[in-house]
């Protein structure tokens, strides 16, 4: 007992960024009340949120990345989690910058928004480091529950209320199914500790005969149930239905955050869960095998192919830009799942690189949507006609983001896609190579399809005549952000060594 308490107290040292986020979130809610009558309330609250995130970043940078279990194995502190924590901090920081300048979140309640946003960042931190079924469930619920509120933040907005209703219903069902799956995993394996799963699964599947087959079936069903919680967070088929409606109805800055933050957190959780407990350690060739021959890489491969195909084919018909980007984000979840299906070091690195680059390019794309919506009040593709004449920077930046999302060189999206496809092709020469080859072909065809609808926007912006000729005049801060995002996409499209090296260093994950 004393040892348990001692471990908990000692673990606080490795938990400082999370503590800052916890207390910072509460402090912002209080500050929102204190500054109720202040004249410069918006600026002060945004400044406070940036300070909290900055403090968390400083403490995160100061923290060791050695793999250590914290709180008696409830969460892990390792280089892998730290990599994703930086992505979450960046997503939170950029969202605060966007919200501070816009009017999507009205001044009387903007402090609540920042406070809740910090709580989501905390939840994502925990998702990336959870090593216990209980912490996995609680962290997913923390992210989800706060997201329901933030999606429906404008209470009198019909669309926002509908979006958050759909979000809460789909989300609760997905987490209910996940919890039910967890209860069976617990029953079969007798522990909540994810790191202790692998040997128990191997032991279970050694039993032969009818009882062995039944156990194996129950195990597979339980894992499928548990993955519904993850699939819902990354918006993969068949848990993608909420995605277009929520993306369209929620305030755009939050949509942008939702498309990069929780998606990356879902992938971090999936990598840790599947590679950590359902696969053996990686061999000298950087490839791992699934425990007891459970065919989960095949299941994920099929999900990946279906997800990207459905996302891309449905995106073609969309005329609302937010809805189009929602289907595009489903497609990108499909591409990224390829990296998980390969079950190799290269695939894992591909997922990490892709989520980092996707953060910049997708936030950038949504920022253009915000800029245009502020000028025209519309998210329809028809209002993008001739954007280059109305605001050249916005049009050129959007062009860069869209080409990068397609995965064309010399943009950063190409780097990300290159690693994912390379990981799949590396597998194509081994056992079950035909299926990996087929997956790569499906991925390549999908990239071609995605070029079609991204190019439709680019054609409208550059080749069509504008319906109205008054100029779009975005705020200076937005222009600076658009410039910085475009520059980052161009720089990392040519000089990707820093990203690759950083992700390479960050592939160390705590194992049981």
């Amino acid at each position, binding site marked *: 007992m004393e040892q348990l308490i001692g471990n908990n107290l000692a673990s606080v040292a490795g938990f400082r960024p999370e503590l800052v986020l916890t207390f910072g979130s509460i402090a912002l809610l209080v500050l929102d009340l204190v500054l109720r009558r202040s004249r410069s309330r918006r600026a002060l609250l945004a400044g406070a949120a940036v300070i909290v995130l900055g403090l968390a970043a400083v403490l995160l940078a100061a923290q060791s990345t050695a793999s250590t279990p914290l709180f008696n194995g409830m969460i892990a502190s390792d280089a892998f989690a730290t990599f994703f924590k930086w992505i979450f901090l960046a997503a939170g920081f950029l969202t605060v910058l966007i919200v501070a300048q816009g009017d999507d979140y009205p001044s009387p309640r903007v402090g609540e928004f920042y406070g809740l946003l910090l709580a989501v960042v905390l939840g994502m931190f925990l998702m990336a480091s959870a090593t216990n079924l209980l912490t996995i469930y609680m962290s997913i619920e923390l992210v989800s529950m706060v997201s329901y509120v933030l999606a429906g933040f404008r209470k009198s907005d019909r669309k926002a209320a509908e979006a958050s209703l759909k979000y809460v219903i789909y989300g609760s069902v997905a987490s209910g199914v996940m*919890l039910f799956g967890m209860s069976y995993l617990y029953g079969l394996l*007798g522990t909540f500790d994810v790191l202790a799963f692998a040997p128990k699964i191997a032991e279970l599947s050694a039993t032969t005969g009818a009882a062995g087959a039944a156990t194996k079936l129950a195990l597979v069903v339980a894992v499928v149930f548990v993955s519904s919680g993850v699939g819902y967070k990354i918006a993969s088929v068949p848990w993608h239905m909420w995605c277009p409606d929520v993306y369209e109805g929620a305030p755009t800055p939050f949509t942008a955050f939702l498309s990069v933050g929780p998606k990356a957190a879902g992938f971090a959780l999936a990598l840790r869960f599947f590679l950590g407990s359902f696969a053996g350690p990686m061999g000298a060739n950087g490839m791992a095998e699934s425990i007891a021959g459970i065919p989960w890489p095949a299941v994920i491969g099929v999900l990946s192919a279906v997800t990207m195909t459905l996302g891309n084919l449905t995106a073609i018909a969309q005329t609302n830009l937010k809805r189009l980007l929602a289907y595009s984000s489903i497609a990108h979840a499909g591409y990224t799942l390829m990296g998980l299906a390969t079950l190799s070091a290269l695939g894992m690195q591909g997922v990490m690189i892709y989520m980092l680059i996707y953060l910049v390019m997708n936030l950038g794309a949504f920022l253009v949507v915000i800029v245009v919506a502020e000028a025209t009040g519309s998210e329809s593709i028809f209002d993008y006609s001739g954007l280059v004449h109305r605001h050249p920077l916005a049009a050129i930046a959007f062009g860069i983001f869209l080409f990068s999302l397609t995965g064309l060189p010399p943009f950063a999206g190409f780097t990300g896609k290159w690693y994912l496809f390379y990981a799949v092709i590396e597998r194509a020469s081994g056992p079950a190579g035909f299926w990996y080859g087929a997956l790569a072909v499906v991925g390549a065809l999908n990239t071609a399809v995605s070029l079609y609808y991204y190019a439709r926007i680019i054609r409208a912006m550059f080749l069509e005549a504008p319906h109205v000729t008054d100029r779009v005049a975005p705020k200076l801060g937005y222009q600076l952000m658009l410039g910085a995002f475009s520059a980052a996409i161009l720089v990392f499209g040519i000089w990707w060594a820093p990203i690759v090296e950083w992700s390479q260093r960050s592939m160390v994950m705590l194992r049981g």
Partner: protein
Amino acid sequence: MDANQYIALAAFLFGIGLVGVVVKRNMLVVFMCIELMLNAANLTFLAFARRAGNMNGHAIAFFVIAVAAAEAAVGLAIVIAVFRTRGTLNVDEVASLRN
């Protein structure tokens, strides 16, 4: 009684909840069905914990109860927001986000 009977009952409750979410049109009933799913998971946890003599399953039930309460609070707040803007509790009538 045997733990297996509890597990079977929980699976049955979970099935009712899942089917209810899909077929029921009233938002409040949908939330009741979600509650049923969570409690079915709780019952399974408890049955397995009892059979294995392991306390973990008992502990998680408390967490799930707390989460379910929070989910109900958020969910009902959203139902009120929807009802105020549309005046209906029917899920099918809340469909303006379609092209």
